[in-house]
């Protein structure tokens, strides 16, 4: 599970912010990959998330803009109330269509879209949450030859989402939150 990855997408819901705050300080520069984070959150708290994450990592953090080209050593956040998709030319697209799994952004939407474009050079990581979102997307990632990683439910504040993924999709690795940052560094070598 090292090298040759171009994109990592992290999906999280309730209880995932703590994990993300553990991951991103560990990221080293000079990586071959970009990171997209799709987090369910309340719209009202939205404005501060990219500011918060920026202070915690060496990577560039920004809220995704439409037509933005994804770059290495960059973190892109799915904006609240938009689905985030990826085009063949590696630019980002936004979409305000119906909520999926009661969620917008939906993790499934971004996982599926990333799988179509990046195939085997994609890894998707599903974190803590109380929702079914992400599982369908992980199946598509696997079909396209990508890598599926899930937070160990025993370490999750809300175990439902990662457990549901383990029960319903083929998972390559179940991982402790402390190890995710290092794994991303390895994948980006």
């Amino acid at each position, binding site marked *: 599970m090292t090298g040759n990855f171009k994109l990592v997408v992290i999906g999280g819901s309730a209880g995932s912010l703590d994990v993300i705050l553990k991951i991103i300080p560990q990221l080293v520069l000079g990586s071959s990959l970009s990171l997209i984070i799709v987090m369910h959150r309340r719209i009202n708290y939205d404005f501060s998330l990219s500011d918060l994450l920026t202070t915690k990592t060496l990577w560039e953090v920004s809220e995704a*803009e*439409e*037509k933005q080209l994804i770059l290495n050593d960059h973190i892109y956040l799915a*904006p609240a109330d*938009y689905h985030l*998709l*990826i*085009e*063949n030319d590696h630019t980002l*697209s*936004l*979409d*305000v*269509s*119906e909520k999926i799994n009661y969620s917008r952004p939906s993790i499934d*939407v971004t996982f*599926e*879209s990333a799988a*179509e*474009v990046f195939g085997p050079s994609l890894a998707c990581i599903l974190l803590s949450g109380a929702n079914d979102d992400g599982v369908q997307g992980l199946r598509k990632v696997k079909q396209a030859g990508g890598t599926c990683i899930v937070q160990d439910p025993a370490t999750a504040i809300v175990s439902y989402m990662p457990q549901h993924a383990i029960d319903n999709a083929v998972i390559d690795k179940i991982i402790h939150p402390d190890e995710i940052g290092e794994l991303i560094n390895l994948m980006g070598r």
Partner: protein
Amino acid sequence: MEILLSDLLEIYGYDFTEYSRASIKRRINRLFVIDRFPSIAEFRFRLVSDQNYLRRMVEEITVNVTEMFRDPMFYKTIREEVFPVLATHPFIRIWHAGCATGEEVYSMAIMLHEANLLHKSLLYATDINPLVLENLRKGIFPLKHMKQYSENYITSGGKNDFSDYYTAKYEFAKFDDMLNRKMISSTHNLVSDRSFNEFQLIMCRNVMIYFDRDLQDKTLTLFDESLEKLGFLALGSKENLKFSVIAKKYLQLENKEKIWRKVL
């Protein structure tokens, strides 16, 4: 998928070829699954042989999700920064381009009414999709959303009781006819149709995010031709004029809401 898009263009004249691929592909896949076609060939056959199915397809692959007073601070800015300028005109023309089921048009009508401007305003509401315009004409929206809309309304600076604007019946809220008396609705395709009037305010929110860069520029040029000098152009919260062909003629409002003024 490219074949389906070229069918839509060649047979029916609907051009989706300049739409962003990822989103439209997802919409078409979704429709394919919902309508349980056994194969792409049967999907295609239905599309080319059944005019009614075309209507369904256009309705389903275009995104019609909208809400009232979406992004309340945006609406507050319209009330506080844009209306005082519009008020100086003897006659106000506003174009809601890509209005979908019309929630934003009703939001605007409510604000104009409260600013005592509705009587001298006309709200042109257009969409590519004829079915959603029927909804706009009726002014009937699901009751379950009213709590959220009412909160949005208050945050946008609304001072009245939001429920005074509609009558609840079963699961629906029917908005006061006083609001839609000044609305003119019509189909209009931003891809292929021309400018049809001059406006002081054009609203086009979360429509162009589905367009590729060239089509965005074409559409913005159309808006530019349809906007009076010193008129306002209002876009969605993640849309921007910054890199567009018309950027240098426009100035964004100081509070950084997605509202631009035509200065040249």
